[in-house]
């Protein structure tokens, strides 16, 4: 219950912040109206868009509408923001889904292998992959991947959504950099678990090595990963935005970027509010699930 109130308070804070920020971005009419527009044209457009009312009133209207799922109408595209978001959301989710699968498989295989064969060549490779994944900026990695696979080798398409081949480059670029911190965390927690009494007991009891690692140890080594789920989610959202802008992937990130460029207030507000609400909701559910899974934790 307390967690719920906290989340609500955070959400209020965020909506206020986004509202103020969006209003500060400059006058959208400067971008929308032609250069030769007169004062009256400005006044009429302002009235039409509801921008002439005092700011607190605008905020009130905004919140009342947002609660009912109405995020306003895009100033540029003239369609409801919620509709724009719903059009783009599946693309972002699919990209995120593919990237998470790539990242999880990489992190699981390499993280566990690195811990089991500590100091071996696998450990070194996973360390190199992890450290470079954390250091190389995603947008540059994306451009280099396009240069290599689309321009030089002509194997994969360089931009836009489409068939399965369109997913490979963005999903691997994002997946790699997303898996890096997970790989490190999994390695260290796995090392800790492998050193524990119950793993040793399982070994003494004659459980096969394979099952000790993947059955007994991994399950407990995954707990820290869930603890940091919120952190990873934030990382993923940022990564999706970056990847989408480079690959011209028609998702929420690209929508937000275009909205910032066009100063399309309702769209920026809508997208950021939507993403934040989603992140908060998921974090909250993870907390609840976590407390349920591990009775030692109570909020």
């Amino acid at each position: 219950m307390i967690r719920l109130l906290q989340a609500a308070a955070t959400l209020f804070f965020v909506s206020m912040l986004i509202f103020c920020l969006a209003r500060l971005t400059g006058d959208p009419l400067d971008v929308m109206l032609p250069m030769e527009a007169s004062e009256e044209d400005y006044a009429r457009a302002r009235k039409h868009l509801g921008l002439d009312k005092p700011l607190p009133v605008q905020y009130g209207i905004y919140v009342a509408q947002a609660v009912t799922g109405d995020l306003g109408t895009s100033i540029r595209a003239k369609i409801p923001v919620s509709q724009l978001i719903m059009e783009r959301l599946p693309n972002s989710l699919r990209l995120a889904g593919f990237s998470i699968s790539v990242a999880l498989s990489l992190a699981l295989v390499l993280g566990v292998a690195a811990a089991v064969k500590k100091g071996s060549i696998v450990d070194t490779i996973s360390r190199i992959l992890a450290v470079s994944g954390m250091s190389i900026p995603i947008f540059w990695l994306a451009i280099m991947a396009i240069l290599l696979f689309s321009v030089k080798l002509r194997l994969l398409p360089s931009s836009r959504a489409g068939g399965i081949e369109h997913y490979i480059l963005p999903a691997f670029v994002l997946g790699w950099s997303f898996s890096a911190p997970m790989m490190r965390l999994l390695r260290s927690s796995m090392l800790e678990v492998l050193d524990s009494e119950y793993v040793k007991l399982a070994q003494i009891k004659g459980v096969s090595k394979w099952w000790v690692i993947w059955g007994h140890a991994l399950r407990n080594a995954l707990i820290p990963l869930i603890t940091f789920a919120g952190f990873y989610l934030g990382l993923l959202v940022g990564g999706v935005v970056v990847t989408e802008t480079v690959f011209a992937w028609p998702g929420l990130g690209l929508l937000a970027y275009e909205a910032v460029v066009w100063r399309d207030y309702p769209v920026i507000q809508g997208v950021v509010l939507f993403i934040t609400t989603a992140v908060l909701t998921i974090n909250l559910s993870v907390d609840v699930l976590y407390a349920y899974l591990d009775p030692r934790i109570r909020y």
Partner: protein
Amino acid sequence: MARAAQTKPQIKNRIRIAATALKRFPAIPVAIILALVLTAIFADFWAPYSPYDQSLPNRLKPPFWVEGGSTEHLLGTDLLGRDVLSRLIFGARISLLVALMGILVAGSIGAVFGVVSGFYGGKVDALIMRACDATLSLPIILLALLLAVIFGPSLANLIYVMGLVLWARYARVVRGEVLSWKEQDFIAYARVAGASPLRIMIRHIFPNIVNTLMVLITFQTGYVIILESFLSFLGAGVPPPTPTWGGMVAEGRGYIITGWWLSVFSGLAISLVVLSLNLFGDWLRDYLDPKLRQV
């Protein structure tokens, strides 16, 4: 007697720990970071050309080892015939400046709020932590992009944006540290001795959290460099013609077929510097504060 017998192995142990730490000292990353700092400070001295001098007949010249390139422009020239190497060298200055100043702003805001929050607790704490939650749950890149567009692209604004976006991390970490130190006996003694809250915070608590701050700062420097380059890449960072690494990657983006060197070298520079900072941060964390290892 007994005491002397106990301390001797302890001292030996300490020396051994220090020796292993030194053996693991990341010499190459530190050398790269030092090289970056020197490059940035003495950019005028190293750069063969001015980063702004255009020469249209010499545009899009490849690096010297590629056919058509010459040793006059070691890493080639860009669309306007400017020397890529010189722009890289001056770009180091911008990256470093934004990173250091941004962290100074974020670190100061975060440290002050964190200490206050942890020390006073109660309503102040709740309010500051909610603000932290809100900032941390915002998609940082979108927020930075939004702020950069609001304030208009300029160097100073970029630094403020970094501060506004990144303060919450510091506040959280500092608050946690303060909470654990606050209950220590020496703080109670200081209080009994009549030290004011401000004095306790500055003289007694702050020195104890410097190590944690140092580690966080090292990692964040790398992150800020990446964030800055991404904003410049999107055109929301330092405006052209000032040379920035992110901006150079962006300029080369449309020319990856005819001028791959435009974005390759600048991206390599970013990656190398951030990599060095991360490796150095790893070492620093193990050395100063092993309990942070999990994070």
